Every structure is written in structure tokens, then in C-alpha cells.
């Protein structure tokens, strides 16, 4: 397979916990500069898929190639060129905003001078100018998520991996994150994200897959998925959207 124009190739990935197939033979690839969405109800296997792609969990079977490197064999070399925004906040509470970025730069082997030169631009990008010395306890949820995004960009990554980047944020904070992610796409970054927000996927994703019970049950552009699965709108008051497709394919039962 051509790996240069495909920063991520996942081939027949399997991951089992006990006797449960959490990821049950999924395959997809992402093109350079693309925003690719991984959608699905809770427990569909999205986060496990991301963990496998980053080399944080070894798959039971299947191949992963991330920025040309085989994962998990060379996951560390791959992660050198990746930025990650995890689902749950893990900013360092003992550090200020700038210190969080400085220390993270060291994890990538960057010298402090290089990191320091990047910090003001990254904080400005995240709308956190003036919060350089701020303690983590004084930051709102939206600010922390933006700082985590800035942290993920410290190594100027080729691919950004975001696990539910706007869960728990208010609409203002969510729109700001979307705006920043669109800016990164315009700069040529490749993005892989998981989300529960169909509006988020519709706005950002060039292509997406819908996962359920460890399998991919639909794949395509948001428009194509709507056209394919919702030829008739469920309501005469509005056109069909991705949420209609999602609920049609994954059902209405609660998944938690």
C-alpha cells in the first residue's frame, strides 16, 4: 500500500478483552490533509482503535501504519510526528500553561529554546494569551481543552489525533475549537477525531466511518451517507442530517 500519501492505514484490526471483541476487524485509511471521523455510540470501540493506532495497546491481529511507521513496533518513532488530544484532561496541575508546553516539548526531545519560541504563538492560537503563567486550577474546561490542543501542536505534528475534543464544552468553546481545527486543516494538517456530535462531524470531517460493536457499519462523506441512508427526511420541517443516519444505523437504545 502507498504509505506516503496515507498518514494512517489500519488493516483488519482486532482487539479482544476477555471474550469480547472490542474491535472486530476494521480497516480504513486516511489521506494526507484529510479530516477523518470515527463515530459511534459509547462502547463502539473508538477509543480502543485510537489507542491501538498510537501504539498504547497492542492489537490481537491486524496491521497499522502511522506516518509510514509500523505500529506498535515503531510506535515511538511514529508518535514523534503526532499530536494527541486525549478524551480526559491530563494537563499537569503542578505547572502553569507555559510550563505545561515547555515540559511537553522536552518529551519530544525539543530543546528549551525551540519550545520557548513556539509557546507564545501556540498560546495565542489557543486564545490563551495572558494566561501564560496561569495555574491549571484557574482555567475553565474550554481553556484547558484549548491548552491541550496547543500542547498537542508543540512538535508541529503531521497528524493530529483528537478523542472527543469538544465533549463537555459549552457552544462557544466548541465553536472556537472547530474554528481552530479548520485552521489547522487549511494549513495542511491531517486530523483523526472521534466524536458524539454529529454536527461536529458534519462540519469538520471530509470522510467518516460509523462504528458499532467493534465493526464499521457505514463509511463515506457526510453528504453521501445522508443521501444513501436518508433519501427521505424523517421530518417535513427540516432536511435529513447525519444524526438521523447515526440513529437509523445504530438504533435508539441507550448504550451506557
Amino acid at each position, binding site marked *: 500500500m502507498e504509505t506516503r500519501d496515507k498518514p494512517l492505514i489500519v488493516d483488519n484490526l482486532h482487539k479482544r478483552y476477555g471474550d469480547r471483541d472490542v474491535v472486530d476487524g476494521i480497516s480504513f485509511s486516511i489521506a494526507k490533509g484529510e479530516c477523518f471521523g470515527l463515530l459511534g455510540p459509547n462502547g463502539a470501540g473508538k477509543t480502543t482503535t485510537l489507542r491501538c493506532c498510537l501504539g498504547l*495497546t*497492542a492489537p490481537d491481529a491486524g496491521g497499522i501504519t502511522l506516518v509510514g511507521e509500523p505500529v506498535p513496533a515503531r510506535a515511538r518513532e511514529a508518535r514523534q510526528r503526532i499530536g494527541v488530544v486525549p478524551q480526559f484532561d491530563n494537563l499537569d*496541575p503542578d505547572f502553569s500553561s507555559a510550563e505545561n508546553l515547555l515540559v511537553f516539548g522536552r518529551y519530544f526531545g525539543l530543546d528549551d529554546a525551540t519550545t520557548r519560541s513556539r509557546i507564545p504563538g501556540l498560546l495565542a492560537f489557543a486564545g490563551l494569551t495572558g494566561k501564560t503563567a496561569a495555574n491549571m486550577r484557574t482555567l475553565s474546561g474550554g481553556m484547558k481543552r484549548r491548552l491541550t490542543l496547543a500542547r498537542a501542536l508543540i*512538535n508541529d505534528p503531521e497528524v493530529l489525533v483528537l478523542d472527543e475534543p469538544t465533549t463537555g464544552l459549552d457552544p462557544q468553546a466548541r465553536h472556537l475549537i472547530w474554528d481552530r481545527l479548520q485552521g489547522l486543516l487549511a494549513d495542511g494538517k491531517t486530523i483523526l477525531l472521534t466524536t458524539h456530535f454529529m454536527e461536529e462531524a458534519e462540519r469538520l470531517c471530509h470522510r467518516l466511518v460509523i462504528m458499532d460493536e467493534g465493526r464499521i457499519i457505514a463509511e463515506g462523506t457526510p453528504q453521501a451517507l445522508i443521501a444513501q441512508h436518508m433519501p427521505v427526511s424523517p421530518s417535513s420541517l427540516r432536511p435529513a442530517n447525519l444524526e438521523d443516519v447515526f440513529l437509523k444505523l445504530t438504533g435508539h437504545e441507550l448504550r451506557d
Partner: protein
Amino acid sequence: MNGTTHFAPPNMSLRAIAVWRRNYMVWKKLAIPSILGNLADPMIYMFGLGYGLGGLLPAALPAFGGGSYIAFLAAGTVCASTMNAASFEALYSAFARMHVQKSWEAIMNAPISLDDVVLGELLWAAAKATLSGVAILIVVAVLGLTHSPLALWAIPAIFLTGLAFSAPGLIVTALAPSYDFFMYYFTLFITPMTLLSGVFFPLDQLPAGIQALAQVLPLTHAVALIRPLLFGEVPPAALLHIAVLVTVTVVCYWVALGLTRRRLLS
């Protein structure tokens, strides 16, 4: 990953230094209170028992190496304090970073493996323990309880002691469901060891069976290495004691890493 791969040999690199530096940067913010806090408890024991109990004893006893009880106890206090500092750091502080703050997960999103995270934590806890042991060593020297330049060799021995107690601490951390779990480690392992390793009194005061048991405790070997140095003597069987402490460090680091891989990378 299955059981075999979790316990595959460690794959260490210099990236561990970045983890060490992260902890150092946090510690620097609270360095003075941290040093004083670590010094207070062992000093109270050393002066309390050393002068209180030592005052009842003759000024020089062969059982105490021919010197005063407080000089005997001072060397034991250096070892016990190093052990305690290493244990607290590898248990409570490392657990906070691993489980509460999720700092290790954040680090592993960067190009740093868990092997290097655990190695960085091991070296950090040992360094912090060294600081604690050396602080007491300085007090002991200032009080004139040690005179020999050989006492300077106690510094690398203190670091090795720090490693030998940080590594088992990281095993307990890898297994801990919560902070409460650490109480078992202290009451069942650390406290009995403090009393059975020649910190407060010479080992030959104990029944023969317990003396034999004491020979497998790492603290016994730390005391056997460090006390003669403070008395200005080359420790008998120094290589044996060093070998025991190195072995404890390597084996426990490996086990701790395997358990932590199982916990975080499954």
C-alpha cells in the same frame, strides 16, 4: 498484549531524563519545605532515642562499634530515612502522577515509552531519597558524629539504597487500587524491616532465626554498607551488599514495569 509480552525485558532510553526533569521542576517549586519536612521526622527519632535512650547507656560500647549510641543510631537513621523517602515518593507521589493526574498517560502520548516513564520515576525517587539521606548525613557530620572522609562514600551508597527501595515501591504502586493500599506495605514490610535491619540496635541482639531472616532484607544490606563508612571503616563484604541492592533494584524495576504495562497498556 498477553502476560509474556508485559514482562518482556525493559527497553530503556535517555528519554527517561525528560520524565526525571518533569518531577524535578515540580519539586523545585517547594524545595525548602520539602527538605525540612523530610528532615524533621528522622531528626526527632535520632535525637529523642539517641540522647534519651543513649543517655542511659555507657558512653562507648563495643556493641555500638565502640562509640556512643547516638553515633550508632545516626548511621541507621541515614538508611531508614533514605528508605522512607524513596518509599513515599515511589508510592504516594508516583501513584498521584500515574492514577490521579494521569501524567504518565500524557507523557506516553509523546514519543516516550512506559519503560522510560517508570525508569524516570525510579531515578527520581532515588534522587529524592538521596537528598533526604544526605541531609541527615550533613547534620550527623556537623554534630561531629562522623569524622572520616570515608563517609563521603556513603553518598553513592545512599543513592543505591534509594534505588533499592524505589523499585519495590513502584511494584506496590502498579498494584494499588487506591492510596489506602499503601498502608499494608508500610505496616507489613517497611516498619518490620526498620526494626529488623540493625537501624536501632545491632542485629546480633535478635534470635538466630530472625537474624537469618534479616539477611534477606534490603535494609540490612544498606545498613551494613553505610554504617562502617560513617565509622571510618571499609565495610566488610561490601561487594555482597552492593550486589544485593543492585539485584533488588533490577528485579523489582522489571516486575514493576511488567505490572504497570499490564495496568496501563492493556
